[in-house]
């Protein structure tokens, strides 16, 4: 039975992807920190991970036609939510720059954690292949 590379790397690869996606959303919030009527957004990371876990467990729908939509990716996209503002602003913008920046930094650190795990998996596989 061949080893599936996706299975061997476990949850860490989707976790890293989710971190990158969240970094993108937070960077967009910060770029729009001065845009009138812009509403800050964020990703529900827990829900995204749950989805990834279900995909790993084989609950995702199979694609038998090239025009079928990827149900896993769709569900992950729909976890993009709006943030509840702490205080109202005159121009209708709900970005709190300091909070967004701290979230971005924290996300970057958690990205490093995911990366370390993934790197450990890859190193382990390499060791197993070379047989040392």
């Amino acid at each position, binding site marked *: 039975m061949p080893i599936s590379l996706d299975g061997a790397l476990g949850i860490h690869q989707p976790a890293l992807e989710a971190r990158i996606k969240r970094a993108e959303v937070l960077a967009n919030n*910060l770029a729009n*920190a001065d845009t009138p009527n812009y509403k800050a*957004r964020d990703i529900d990371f827990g829900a995204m991970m749950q989805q990834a876990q279900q995909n790993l467990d084989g609950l995702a729908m199979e694609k038998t036609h090239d025009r079928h939509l990827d149900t896993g990716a769709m569900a992950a996209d729909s976890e993009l939510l709006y943030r509840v503002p702490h205080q109202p602003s005159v121009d209708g913008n709900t970005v709190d720059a300091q909070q967004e920046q701290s979230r*971005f930094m924290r996300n970057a650190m958690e990205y490093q954690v995911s990366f370390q795990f993934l790197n450990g998996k*890859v190193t382990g596989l390499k060791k197993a292949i070379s047989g040392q």
Partner: protein
Amino acid sequence: MSLGNIFDIAGSGMTAQSLRLNTTASNIANAETASSSIDQTYRARKPVFAAIQQSMLNPQQQGMALANDQGPGTGVRVEGIVESDAELQMRFQPDHPAANEDGYVFYPNVNVVEEMADMMSSSRSFQMNVDIMNSAKSMMQRILTLGQQ
């Protein structure tokens, strides 16, 4: 690769903020530019920002993105520059070379204090975008070391 998108997003933020800084510089430089008629007097200029939605950049995914409005967005753009319609300052200076027949000159409606605050805000926002770009760079550099000893 979506890490590349962060460079575009932070880059668009930096472009927008530097344009805002440009208008501020222009307003402050022209704060004392007098003229003899209302039409020719300099008016304070302000950029108008708007968020870029993914559907604008990605025409082939437009139907999808419009259907559920779930795109994370891809940065900020400057929609245009508007001139302030606040009242101009009219000063009685009969010995000014640009004075009209009644002895008045018109000064721009630039509020220098407001412009200074705007300048601080935009330079901070610019720095923030630079920080984001640096973080994205180090994240990308890390992923390049995947599997190395």
